[in-house]
């Protein structure tokens, strides 16, 4: 758990060192106010757009007779594999001089709406159709039932997805930088990287953390009011589908349009520049070495994260209590911290506390663990539900000791969930940019950092091979995750 606390401790220590006057001088400026407004505005606009797009798409692919639903489900989830900075780069290289707030909002929406789509689609598939049938039988129309029953059933999933999107936008660095939108993350990075102004970077980080805490607190408060919706006993039939009638073709065209913007633009843009990028002298060895670096640091990060997440996840699932809740929230907070802040704090940690780790891949792996631990803990805790404690009790009653039970019953049952968690951490690690930029050992370049360096100097052709390879490698774990969510399953009985 200490992993999650390093960044917070760092911020507290350094901000205290800076002294009150200095902080006030940095804090109460027009620029900070503008940054805060722009960051929050961007988060608000993108979250709202993602909820609309995500819930709508989820409904179309799970609850209607839309032609080609499974293909559309896959297409709608695939933007997960496209890091925001690649999407931004693709747009910039296609539409010259594209920059500012609204383009950034567009790119971020297209990249992050799967974060709403996936949980909502799962909830829509899992919801009990009997409740909707009861509502219809009590005289409510289809639309009234949708708003009064269905939307409420999926509210927790929608809120969780929206929170992820909001946190993601607040901490996004790549897209806003490429599209030249000044938000906190960009200002922090610029202050640190160009000006070596650590105090300025720190104060800005603290404000960003405060915004994040505010967001988390808001989510917790609404969750308490919304409570949880338990399903009461009984076996469940698969959901019924609404026939769309003639509306199915416009709906399909709309989904094709979204997919074209979210996937088509990057694909075309990368494809066009790929030939030029690959034929550049010496390109191939450089790309391969960067790919190797990306793979090794992401794998190391995923392994370290899962190792830390396993006991935490099992504890959270088996022994719910105040302690586990606090641990869970702390981990969430660390996750919500932008990669820039995590990067800065781990540099400090490396220099002052664990010098042997500084400038090694292990520090980078540790940063990934800090950033992505909650994703992994969530996956493990969810998977632990696959192995109910009743099974373990039976195993013990048959004369098997605790370790044997863990090895022969618990682990085999939660392994698929652990695999999904590892895939998610690996995927996010591959895409991670700011912490990687700050923490990579000198001379070690990953796909993400090479791409970043090339786009920064406008060498779009040189950047294309890195971007293409990154997207292709990321697509694999994405596909695994989507397949596991059940979205691609054949019709379950009808």
């Amino acid at each position, binding site marked *: 758990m200490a992993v999650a606390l390093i960044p917070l401790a760092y911020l507290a220590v350094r901000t205290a060192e800076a002294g009150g006057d200095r902080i006030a001088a940095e804090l109460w400026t027009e620029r900070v106010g503008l940054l805060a407004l722009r960051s929050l505005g961007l988060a608000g606009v993108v979250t709202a757009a993602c909820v609309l797009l995500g819930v709508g798409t989820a409904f179309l692919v799970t609850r209607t007779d839309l032609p080609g639903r499974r293909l559309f489900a896959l297409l709608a989830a695939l933007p997960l594999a496209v890091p925001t900075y690649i999407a931004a780069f693709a747009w910039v290289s296609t539409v010259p001089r594209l920059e500012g707030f609204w383009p950034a909002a567009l790119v971020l929406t297209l990249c992050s709406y799967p974060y709403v789509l996936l949980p909502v689609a799962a909830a829509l598939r899992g919801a009990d159709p009997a409740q909707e049938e009861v509502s219809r039988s009590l005289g409510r129309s289809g639309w009234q039932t949708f708003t009064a029953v269905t939307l409420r059933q999926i509210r927790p999933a929608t809120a969780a997805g929206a929170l992820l999107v909001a946190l993601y936008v607040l901490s996004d660095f790549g897209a806003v930088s490429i599209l030249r939108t000044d938000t906190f993350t960009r200002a922090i990075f610029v202050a640190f990287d160009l000006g070596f102004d650590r105090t300025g970077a720190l104060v800005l980080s603290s404000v960003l953390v405060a915004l994040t805490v505010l967001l988390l607190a808001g989510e917790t408060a609404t969750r308490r009011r919304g409570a949880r919706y338990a399903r009461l006993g009984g076996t469940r039939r698969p959901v019924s589908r609404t026939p769309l009638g003639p509306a199915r073709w416009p709906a399909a065209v709309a989904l094709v349009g979204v997919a074209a913007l979210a996937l088509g633009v990057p694909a075309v843009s990368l494809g066009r520049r790929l030939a030029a990028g690959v034929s550049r002298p010496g390109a191939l060895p450089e790309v391969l070495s960067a790919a190797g670096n990306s793979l090794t640091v992401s794998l190391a990060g995923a392994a370290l994260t899962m190792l830390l997440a396993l006991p935490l996840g099992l504890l959270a699932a088996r022994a719910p209590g105040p302690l586990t809740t606090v641990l869970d929230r702390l981990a969430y907070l660390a996750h919500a911290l932008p990669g820039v802040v995590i990067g800065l704090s781990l540099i400090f940690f490396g220099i002052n506390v664990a010098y042997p780790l500084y400038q090694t891949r292990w520090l980078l792996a540790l940063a990934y663990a800090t950033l992505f631990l909650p994703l992994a803990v969530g996956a493990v805790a969810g998977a632990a539900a696959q192995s*109910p404690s*009743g*099974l373990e*009790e*039976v*195993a*013990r*009653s*048959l*004369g*098997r*000791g*605790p370790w044997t*039970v863990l090895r*022969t*019953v618990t682990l*085999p*049952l939660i392994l698929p969930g652990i695999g999904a968690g590892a895939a998610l951490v690996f995927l996010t690690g591959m895409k991670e940019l700011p912490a990687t930029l700050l923490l990579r050992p000198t001379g070690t370049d990953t796909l993400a950092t090479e791409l970043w360096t090339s786009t920064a100097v406008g060498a779009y052709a040189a950047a294309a091979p890195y971007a293409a390879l990154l997207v292709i490698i990321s697509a694999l774990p994405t596909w695994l995750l989507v397949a596991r969510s059940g979205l691609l399953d054949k019709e379950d009985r009808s």
Partner: protein
Amino acid sequence: MSEVVLSGVVKRYGRVSALAGVHLSVPSGQLTAVLGPSGCGKTTLLRCLAGFERLDAGEIRIDGTRVAGGGRHLPAHRRRIAVVPQEGALFPHLSVADNVGYGLDRAARRTDRVEEVLTLVGLAGYGDRMPHQLSGGQQQRVAVARALAPRPSVVLLDEPFSALDAGLRVGLRHDVREALRADGATGVLVTHDQGEALSVADQVVVLRDGRVIQAGAPTTIYREPADAWVAGFVGDAVLLPAVVEHGSARTALGVLPVAGTVPDGAVTVLVRPEQVRFSPAPNAVTATVLRHDFHGHDALVGLRLADGTRITARILDGDAAVAIGGEVTVHVDGPARALPVDATTGRPAAAPAPLAA
């Protein structure tokens, strides 16, 4: 094959006593049913026996060896007590054979013990199936076989048939009893279904509010219930106020012989509905038919006696002409059973009473 003895077992959850001093003896090689309404503590009792919960007081001995109580808590995996949970809880990642062989050591797994217990539960040749390929009843059979395989001291069955269809339930519980008998296993069956307890168990233990109210053979529990509550819980009961004089009870149904020796005075007597017969006998009384519930194999007829007392009669001949509102004559076949009266309220005692021997 082991005898299990519980003495003064107490288990509290916060301020609620789930078990408030349970004394119980489970004879070796027999099937004991623990019967009680939901919330009576029967599942807690089972979890204490299995070793999943620690006792707050009292002790549990198996064949004279203390396994729980007095500062000792033998962990579940050392007790040799196998459980069959409500939903079977088969390991979903293991085949039927691997499920059944789970509790066996490596040497025993190579013998034909797995096939032997699968045969006992009527699933010979199913070893290669996976749990999800089995029906609910078959899953329960595998769960029983899995519990029997390592020849545990005791097999605990936690309402193992409650999730099944009524028809399937009857067949399965008799097969399971036969399997336990054939293997010589000591069994404890927890259930809230009195029919199940009476029909399969060698001994029935009635539990209420965390205490044992009565323990005995099924026939004893049914015919000689300790109090009015047990009488009503294990079957349909007609309870009548009565005055006993010289071994006969004066009731609204006439003067009835009373079983056993009962001192003279006011009591409540128990008559089972199947004792109430429609026939013009010398001591018959007249009753008005209020309702007629047809059950196929028999029928329950609600009657009102001349003084307004309502009683129930069970008749085997469902076609018998009983018109609602019509009059019939009834008499009681066999002796009535006097139940103790609570001295303070004058009502039938609901508190623990001396066992009717």
